[in-house]
């Protein structure tokens, strides 16, 4: 006889953790299925080779490839398996998911992000829509995340500050690199508003979690102190402590099982250690496998009422896949250029966080680009300290045509990078415009090692994505020049950010054009919810994670309501 739970949650990242904790605290019996292992703080190192250059936290793409399709330049599509390629759509397959590896730059979406269609009108070639909820609906849940996940920072008044129900973050800001004060001094003179970047990193210990150790190796790495607000460190441990939530690692969901009435009955999953299939029954199934794998699982979960995949009656599952446009920049601060005081400041500091964000350009009002349009965020930070990646970047930065720089010339670049000064970089966050044909389907040929169809990911970047990234990168470059940076270079491209993924199951009012209702409940199966970033219909110009966490808490509350409050 199979086991029965009130709720089975598939995936344990930002979409799964809040649901598990909320439902368990409300007295419901919860099972979390996670395909990856259950690593803990003691398992995490800052070893670049293991963590950043091998598939240590993700499946082998030889064994579990995706198929990527990109425009072939002749009106068609060129496809290739990700096995042996530069593409990798897996992100942190372990308990807590990719939140273990995030940088944790946490910014809320703005009120206008919830109504882009009304604010700016339609965009040709894109399917821009308003959300079925408002910022005001989400605000209490953003605030809850500040406390539950732990966000440190400092609220300052600025023209794009979104409404807040509390005056301050619950945790004081982390300590900062001298570049932060330099920015605060220079930028206001140009009429700009540097904002301290909130982080999902504890500046004070809480419970079993220690505060930040300031090692400087944050993004891409697991946090060995528990300071980073991963779903695992911040939420799942507490969910398990209720005695009503079980997290089952190395358990890969195979399909959501639906009955003759179209409602979910349970989930079939595979124990990765034994290869055996198991079935668990559930009153409610929550899917939170990150956008691409969520779409794949739903498309694989056919049933009597779901012949084209669970919730796919209108053919919307997998569509409007979102990333973040690709823009960045970098400037050098040679010691020889600086006053002796400033040079010494840079030489002597061991601080790792710059933590300055600009949202002055959240709307682009530039006659060269026509009517006002959506802009975005520019976030300043130190270059990642990874030495191999740094060396490779110095070899390849401006040599993509003729090949990399090597030999004594490369070694000279390395020497100058480390010894002659310091560097400040920025990255751009802007909307990846939703395009229905930028989408996930099941590949007709390529399968994973178990013979299950791989996700086929069609990548299409609307021309405005690159325009926005390039425009914002120029603004970032302006800030670097205000600071006196040398050799300022910017980059904007059409690449898809495979670590910032959303869409594929947009929520909306109309079942013909959306997969989920305003509560992220499936239109076609009233006991199936999707709580990862898949629900997001338009991207917003900030990293997705805070919004995914907040929405998952919001939806979890609706699930408690649907199941009935109180312990059984």
């Amino acid at each position, binding site marked *: 006889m199979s086991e029965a739970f009130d709720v089975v949650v598939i995936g344990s990242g930002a979409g799964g953790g809040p649901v598990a904790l909320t439902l368990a605290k409300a007295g419901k019996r919860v099972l979390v299925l996670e395909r990856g292992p259950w690593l803990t703080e003691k398992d*995490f*190192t*800052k*070893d*670049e*080779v*293991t963590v950043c*250059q*091998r*598939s240590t936290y993700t499946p*082998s*793409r*030889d064994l579990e490839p995706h198929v990527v399709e990109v425009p072939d330049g002749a009106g068609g599509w060129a496809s290739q398996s990700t*096995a*042996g*390629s*530069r*593409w*990798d759509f897996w992100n942190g397959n372990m308990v807590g998911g990719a939140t273990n590896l995030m940088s944790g730059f946490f910014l809320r979406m703005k009120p206008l992000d919830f109504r882009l269609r009304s604010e700016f009108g339609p965009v040709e070639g894109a399917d821009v829509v308003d959300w079925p909820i408002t910022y005001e609906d989400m605000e209490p849940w953003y605030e809850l995340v500040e406390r539950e996940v732990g966000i440190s920072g400092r609220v300052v008044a600025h023209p794009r500050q979104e409404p807040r129900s509390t005056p301050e973050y619950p945790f004081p800001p982390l300590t900062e690199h001298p570049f932060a004060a330099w920015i605060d001094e220079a930028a206001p003179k140009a009429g700009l508003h540097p904002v301290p970047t909130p982080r999902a990193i504890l500046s004070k210990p809480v419970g079993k979690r220690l505060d930040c150790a300031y*090692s400087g190796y944050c*993004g*891409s*790495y697991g946090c060995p102190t528990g300071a980073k607000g991963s779903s695992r460190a911040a939420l799942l441990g507490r969910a398990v402590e209720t005695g009503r939530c079980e997290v089952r690692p190395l358990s890969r969901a195979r399909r959501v099982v639906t009955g003759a009435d179209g409602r979910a009955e349970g989930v079939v999953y595979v124990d990765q250690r034994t290869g055996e299939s198991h079935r668990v029954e559930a009153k409610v199934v929550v899917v939170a496998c990150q956008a691409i794998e969520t779409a794949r699982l739903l498309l694989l979960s056919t049933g009597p009422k779901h012949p084209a995949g669970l919730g796919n009656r209108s053919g919307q599952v997998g569509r409007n896949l979102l990333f973040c446009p*690709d823009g*960045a920049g*970098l400037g050098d601060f040679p010691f020889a250029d600086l006053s002796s005081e400033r040079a010494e400041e840079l030489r002597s500091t061991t601080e790792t966080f710059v933590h300055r964000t600009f949202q002055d350009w959240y709307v682009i009002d530039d006659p060269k680009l026509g009517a006002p349009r959506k802009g975005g965020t520019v976030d300043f930070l130190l*270059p*990642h*300290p*990874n*030495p*191999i*990646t*740094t*060396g*490779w*970047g*110095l*070899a*390849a*930065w401006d040599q993509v045509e*003729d*090949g*990399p720089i*090597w*030999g*004594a010339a*490369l*070694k000279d670049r390395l*020497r100058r990078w*480390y*010894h002659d000064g310091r*560097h400040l*970089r920025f*990255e751009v966050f802007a909307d990846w415009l939703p395009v229905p044909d930028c989408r996930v389907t099941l590949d007709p040929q390529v399968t994973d090692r178990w013979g299950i169809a791989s996700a086929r990911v069609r990548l299409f970047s609307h021309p405005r994505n690159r325009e926005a990234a390039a425009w914002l990168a120029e603004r970032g470059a302006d800030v670097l020049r205000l600071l006196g940076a040398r050799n300022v270079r910017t*980059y904007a*491209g059409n*690449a898809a*950010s495979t*670590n910032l993924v959303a869409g594929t199951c947009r929520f909306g009012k109309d079942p013909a054009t959306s997969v989920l209702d305003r509560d992220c409940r499936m239109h076609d199966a009233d006991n199936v919810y999707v709580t990862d970033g898949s629900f997001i219909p338009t991207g917003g110009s900030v990293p997705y994670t805070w919004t995914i966490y907040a929405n998952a808490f919001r939806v979890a509350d609706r699930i408690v309501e649907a199941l009935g409050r109180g312990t059984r």
Partner: protein
Amino acid sequence: MDPTTPDDPASPIRLDRRALLARLAGVAAIGAPLSAAVLSGCVERVARLSAAPPPSRLAGRVLSREEWRTLEAALDRLLPSEPGAPGANDVDAIGYLDATLASPDVEGPDPARVRTAARRLDAIAVERGVASYADLLVPARDEVLLALQKADAEGLRCVERLLYYALEAFLGDPVHGGNKGEVAWTWLGHVPGEPRLRRRKGEPR
């Protein structure tokens, strides 16, 4: 994308870093001996010693004796040893490359691609009248590497892969077998992140 960020896997900096393993069965593993100078951590001395001709080697785990010799010579040109600055030879980049390509952690086509690099370097060397790339003098070695890089897409990819592994050997944690005595980190003043990896996967405690 700024090539100094590792956060974007779509960035060209992460080209083909994983690869299908083509293990050579039945070949004895020969560890690459360390030079005493490297162990001493004395960079100046390392740089002088590394100008000596490469020691004769048997085959590696993935690389044949000929491939080993050719690639060792190529790695030396990609990251040359200089007075006051270590290079590929000082960190045993060739031993690192062979051991790494034999590791099950390396996915995708890299082992085959690296061996193709050796074959193509030797082919250009033969056109220049010597039997092996390693028989060329230093300036000619640079010319041949550049010629391979510019020859075609495969040639470019071969040189990229070699350079990539040279950088891993040079700038990775010594626990993986390169960067002996942290000579490259010491040269650059690089501070590694903590906690470090204390032993590789599968190694005894």
